[in-house]
Every structure is written in C-alpha cells, then in structure tokens.
C-alpha cells in the first residue's frame, strides 16, 4: 500500500496502490484529465487514482481570459482536495487488504500505532466519501440492520447514534462487530457481506452519530421518518436541522 503524506493539516488523502480496479477506461488517451490528477499537480496524491471519472476543466475554466487565471489561483486548494475524494463514486473495492491489522479484541479499546494509522485511513476513505456513506445507508436497510437498531435509535439492538459503545465506536471496531458478531443477538456477517460493503455500513453507522465530514453525510430517508412514538415526540419538541 502506498500512502502520501500531507502538505498540511487535513490535506492528506490516502490513495490506493495501482491496481486493476479501474472501472472506467482510461481517458488519458483522449487527452482528458482527471480532477484527481489536478490534485496530483499539487503533489498530494499518489501516482495512481482510483476512478477516472472526471474531466478536469481547470485548464478550460468557464470564463476564459483574464478571469480564468485569477479564478484558478483563488481556488481553495483544500476544498479542491476534499471535493475530489468526497464525491467520487467508488464501485470496486481497493486492491490492498482492508482487513483490520489487529485481531479480535472484544473491548476494542486498545490499539497500536499500526491500527491507529489504519483506522485513520479507513475513516478518510469511507466516512469522508458521500457515496460510500449512502451505499452504507442502503445496505443498512437491505440487510435489515433496521430491524434491531431502527434508524439508529435502537430497538431490540442497542442505539447507534449515541456515544455509548459496548464494543467500540471506531470505524474498524464497528467493522469487526459486524464481521464477527457479538453476544446477545448480533449475528456475524463475516463472509456474508463483502468487506467493502461492511466498511460502507460501518461508515454509515458512524455518520449516524455525526461522525465524518458533514458534507459527506446522507440527508433524510425517502421513507417514514418516525419509527416509534418516542422518536416522533422528540422531533415535535425540537426539530433538527439534520434529521436522520
């Protein structure tokens, strides 16, 4: 796995190693660019990007002429970088291993340096990507997580949107919880859900608690908002700007 270091706070974005997971054919040949390569130009990302699904018009900006130069210069680099990753649609799993390096630990509270790094990487990769989070939301319904945890408020299973975690609330800990199952009713989905989908689920679960960049989180659902009378009352009392 290849990682690049940041040129500043928040700017680091781990990129995956070259691998056979390009879903779209190479646009290079047509002289088209990739916005992620625009990131490259800033020396941030690694040599290989995952999804060549963007034409960069940074060089062809809409106003042309004198406005263009000024305008390009004014682009906040940080915004550019985060946007590149946040909005990509990743259809294929990364080629490097995405299995947490630390093994089964029920408490999940102690983590070594390597696993901290890994955790950071997975958080950026999944929590920071709107498509992953939204896929996680879809799978949450598909695999009936909803059946026990409701919309995060908890039912027969524990709530997922508060800060209390029995088995750890970090993304890799949630991953392990899903994969391994937990006593008192949480089934083990290891082998039943492909790894990338588990990460997406974990990222969505994290986003329920307000983790991850706000701009990557999902909006409201397209189904009933109220799972229970309690949830209903809560909403009546205090309308939230960020409904689940």
């Amino acid at each position: 796995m290849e990682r690049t270091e940041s040129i500043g706070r928040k700017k680091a974005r781990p990129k995956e190693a070259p691998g056979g997971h390009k879903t779209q054919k190479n646009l290079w040949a047509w002289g088209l660019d990739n916005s992620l390569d625009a990131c490259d130009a800033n020396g941030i990302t690694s040599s290989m990007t995952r999804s060549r699904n963007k034409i960069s018009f940074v060089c062809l900006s809409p106003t042309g002429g004198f406005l263009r130069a000024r305008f390009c210069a004014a682009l906040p680099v940080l915004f550019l970088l985060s946007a590149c990753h946040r909005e990509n649609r990743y259809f294929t799993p990364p080629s490097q291993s995405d299995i947490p390096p630390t093994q089964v630990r029920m408490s999940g509270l102690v983590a070594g340096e390597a696993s901290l790094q890994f955790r950071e990487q997975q958080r950026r990769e999944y929590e920071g990507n709107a498509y992953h989070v939204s896929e996680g939301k879809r799978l949450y319904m598909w695999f009936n997580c909803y059946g026990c945890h409701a919309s995060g408020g908890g039912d027969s299973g524990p709530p997922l949107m508060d800060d209390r975690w029995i088995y750890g609330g970090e993304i890799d800990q949630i991953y392990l919880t899903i994969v391994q199952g937990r006593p008192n009713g949480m089934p083990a989905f290891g082998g039943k859900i492909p790894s990338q989908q588990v990460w997406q689920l974990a990222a969505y679960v994290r986003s329920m608690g307000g983790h991850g960049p706000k701009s990557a989180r999902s909006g409201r659902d397209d189904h009933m908002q109220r799972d229970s009378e309690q949830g209903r009352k809560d909403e009546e009392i205090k309308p939230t700007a960020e409904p689940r």
Partner: protein
Amino acid sequence: MDERSTGLHSIGDAMGRHAQDIDALWDVMLWVCGFMYLLVVGFLLLALFRRGPRRDINDHTQAHEERGLSASLATWTGLIALGLFGLTLFSYFTDRSLVQAAADAQIAIKITGHQWWWEIEYTDPNDPSRQLRTANELHLPVGTPVKISLESRDVIHSFWVPSLHGKQDLIPGRDNDIEILADKEGVYRGICAEFCGLQHSKMHLDVVVESKDGYSAWYERQLQAASPPSDPLAERGHGVFMATACNMCHTISGTDAGGSTGPDLTHVASRRFIAAGALQNHRDNMRAWLANPQAIKPGNHMPIVSLSADQLDALTAYLGTLQ
C-alpha cells in the same frame, strides 16, 4: 449478441393492439406533417426565387399582391387549424381505444422497478397460492390481455416495450398500470425509459410471448422449487452460494437462500439474459458477471464477492442447473 436475440424493440414493429393503434396514428401524423412541411418549403423557395415584380422600401406603390397574401394567410391559418383539428381528433380517438380495457384481464402481473432491474410477480386470481416471482423476463400468452400494475421501490422508472405499447412510469408512492395484448408470438425487448441513475442504460426486460400452452408450461415450471444439484461441481456451487454473500440478496426457492433485495434466481438458467438484459445468459457470461459485476454494470448493486476460480466455476455450474 445479434439483433434476433435481443427481440423486437422498434415502434414500427408493432405486435400488439395498442402499439398497432399508435402506429396507425403515426402514419397519419407523418403524412399530414410531411405535407405541411413540403408546403412551407415550397412557399419559401418560391418566395425567395420567384421572378416577377418585387418591391422594396423605396417603392411606395401599394403592393397589389398585398390583398392576395392576406387572403392566403387566412387560408394558411385555416389549413393549419384544420390539420391540427384532424390530428387532435384522431389522437383523441386513438387514446380512447388505448384506454378501453379488455373485458377482464386474465392474468394479474405486478412489476416493481428497482435500480436497475425489474421484479415480476404473477398472481393467479383463482388460486392465490400459485404465485410466482421472477425477474427481468416477462412471459405472456399470445392474444390474451394482461394488466400489469407498476410500482417502484426506489426512483422513477418507466416501463416500455415498444412493440407492444407506449410507456408508463413506475413512480414511488403511486400506483400505475398498463394493459398490453400481444398478437404474435415472439420475443420483444422492454427498456427502462426514465432516467434512473447510474445503470439506466442497462435496465432492459425480455418479453417472451408464447402460445397459451407454452405459457402454461412455463408457468408450471416456474412454480417448481429448484431441483437439488446432481453433479458434484454444482453441489459445490450450491455450497458456495449458501456460504458467501449470494444468499444475502437472492432467493432460490427450495433452498435456504431467501434474500429479497436482488432478483429471484430460482430459475435463472431458464432466462435468456442476465443482468437485466446486459448479457446473454450462457456459461462464460455468467462467470464473468459473477467474477466482476462492476466491470459489466459499473455502480450496480451487486458487489464484487471475492471468489476463487474454483468457487466461480462451481457457482456458475450451479446457477446453470437452475432451469
């Protein structure tokens, strides 16, 4: 894939009552509009290139032809109005005949749109237990009016089989239906006609119109549960199906697989196409699809499940037995 295998999909190949009515209307429209166009072009060319007296602004004599032009403006307007009136009437009566329901639809079918495939449910009005679920391949008896109710699980789709009828949208939260009546046996291609996201392009549907006997036979066959695999390879494939991600989303009746978010695979091998019309259904395509569905339909909801080559072979073989 050759043209024959995709089935008819042209508005001109009208093989159902409704499509034929619309096709007749099309012919009239084409002739009337073509005639109007030729009139315009003729008048334009004549106006530009005619010989004879022309006046410009410096010529103050009151143009003699002014009256003639005014009169022909009235004629022209009348002609347009008449043509439009005729077309509107014709269109209206065609529409009446389209919505005229056949006495009683004998088969009730529900089609549910998903991103990006069609779920099809047949109910036998006489025997509710004879209900069956399939996907992406609609079988119909020839000459029998069928009422299809259309629903959507996610976004708006549109059900369209050009050879049989116009489209009808599948809208979440609304109940639409469409009646179709196929006159000729054959295979027709249905297409999702409302933009529905990443794989809108690959959301097709096969409509197989059979003789009534053929249809009944098909129906009976589809009602059967899947037969247990006989050869060892398929047996192993069955194991793979049950042990990995497959059964999270797919149902194979007669087995433990009961996932409901993906297409029902009980008789997947009997279908002409897989992946909602994206691939013809044969061994190599099936294997390629299982190995990497995202390469064939990027963004579709079937994930890449990492399977070894052996497992893939076994799984392909198993699915091949689900006739």
